[in-house]
């Protein structure tokens, strides 16, 4: 019998606050190798802050974030760079570099991060654009010439360009119409299966979560209050989860009308 594989990402007792506002309050989460975990939760519950802590864009006050058993909290740049080599990220608004063409955006991680020659990187970028349903003619355009859906696709192509072991998705369907949202979901599922990558997605789009996830976790007030297989989400027995997935105003979650 094979021993259980250690989780790809393991987050323990994570705390993060801005001034007096506590955003993450002892958050624990395990992301198994090769699985797709989706974190759901309302606005301002700490989803994006969690992602930024994992990526090293923010530093937590307390706790540990283990990626392949290496604690990345407090790592210096050279150490962190080796971890980031394993990572791809699709940002909410794609975050494409305005000063570069589409193919240069897709090839950026290959050229600057891996030192691959521009000609070879161009070929790979065109292949990756094809993987997300975009033709080679798009490659020479500027990001400002693209529609929202195309920008997301280019962002996805950039995220998978280096064949990463771990991919993060920040609100992948936000700002897209339902059909384009579903196209992006399908592309994510298809590409992630193809790569065999471990993924972490944050979203409040339940249709997207149901399609992408193997496992769903719900964050509320800086903690994971429920986690389980996607098939269990409708029978979670958790009032917070039920209120969120059905989008009801009444329930234990009280939304602040004013910004906190």
């Amino acid at each position, binding site marked *: 019998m094979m021993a259980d594989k250690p989780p790809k990402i393991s987050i323990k007792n994570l705390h993060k606050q801005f001034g007096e506002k506590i955003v993450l309050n002892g958050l624990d989460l395990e992301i198994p190798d090769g699985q797709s975990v989706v974190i759901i939760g309302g606005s301002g519950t700490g989803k994006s802050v969690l992602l*930024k802590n994992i*990526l*090293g*864009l923010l530093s937590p006050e307390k706790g540990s974030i283990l990626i392949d058993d290496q604690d990345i909290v407090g790592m210096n*740049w050279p150490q962190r*760079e080796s971890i*980031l*080599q394993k*990572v*791809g*990220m699709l*940002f*909410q*608004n794609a*975050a*494409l*570099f*305005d*000063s570069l063409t589409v193919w240069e955006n897709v090839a*950026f*991680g290959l050229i*600057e*991060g*891996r030192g691959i020659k521009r000609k070879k990187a161009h070929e790979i970028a065109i292949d990756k654009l094809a993987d997300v349903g975009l033709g080679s003619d798009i490659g020479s355009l500027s990001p400002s010439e693209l529609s929202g859906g195309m920008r997301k696709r280019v962002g996805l192509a*950039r995220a998978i360009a280096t064949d990463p072991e771990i991919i*993060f998705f920040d609100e992948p369907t936000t700002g897209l119409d339902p059909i384009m949202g579903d196209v992006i979901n399908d592309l994510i599922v298809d590409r992630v299966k193809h790569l065999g990558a471990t993924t972490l997605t944050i979203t409040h789009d339940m249709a997207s979560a149901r399609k992408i996830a193997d496992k769903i976790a719900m964050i509320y007030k800086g903690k994971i209050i429920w986690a389980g297989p996607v098939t269990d989400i409708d029978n979670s027995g958790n009032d917070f989860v039920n209120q969120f997935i059905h989008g009801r105003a009444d329930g234990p979650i009280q939304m602040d009308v004013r910004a906190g």
Partner: protein
Amino acid sequence: MNPLASIGRTTISFFNTIGRISLFFGRALYHCFTPPFYGRLLGRQLIEIGYYSLPVVGLTAIFTGMVLALQSYTGFVRFNAEGAVASVVVLSITRELAPVLAGLMVSGRIGAAMAAEIGTMSVTEQIDALTTLSTNPFKYLVAPRLIAGVLMLPLLVLVADIIGVFGGYLVSVYKLGFNPTVYLERTWDILEPLDVVSGLVKAAVFGFLISLMGCYHGYHSRGGAKGVGAATTNAVVSASVLILAFNYIITELFFAI
């Protein structure tokens, strides 16, 4: 509102900013001297700062030289000392006006552009994207701009020196009736290497300050278009004030030589 609390908050905020700029300065300097170096980006910044600033710096210099000749003539003629016009023009231009005016003009053109570009990248998560693509934003965005600022401002000032003196020459010879040979001889005789060197040292420091302020304010801009606008204004204002302050400090240092 408690005035003491307000003063306290302002003081803390001031020292907080000084601390953050110092840390930014230290990190930026470190990344200027450690690989990887982005030659392509450095080249682009050299052209952006040096080549594209030439027209504005050249125009500023020629008109400054011309007006300087007119004004100094107006003063000196009252003491029958109009022969000193050439000396005043060349010394004022090389030691003071070329570096300061070129610095201020480049601050308005380049400092603002840097803050706006990096600020937009910051608020649209492009800087975060750089990090996730294993690229250090300090090395990629800040270091090339700092190095280009330090290298190109002295070259621009050297050009401004020549054009400014030429502006003074034009007015002195064609409007005030100076003998061209005598004017050029007086210009050349009075000029010492230290006059030019002091202006070039100032220019290198001003170039660094302009890039540092542009990058710092852009990098820390928050809150969308309004934040980017504020960063742009702050970059130009802080660079301009620092240029004038460091101009005094460097002049004082050269006086001691």
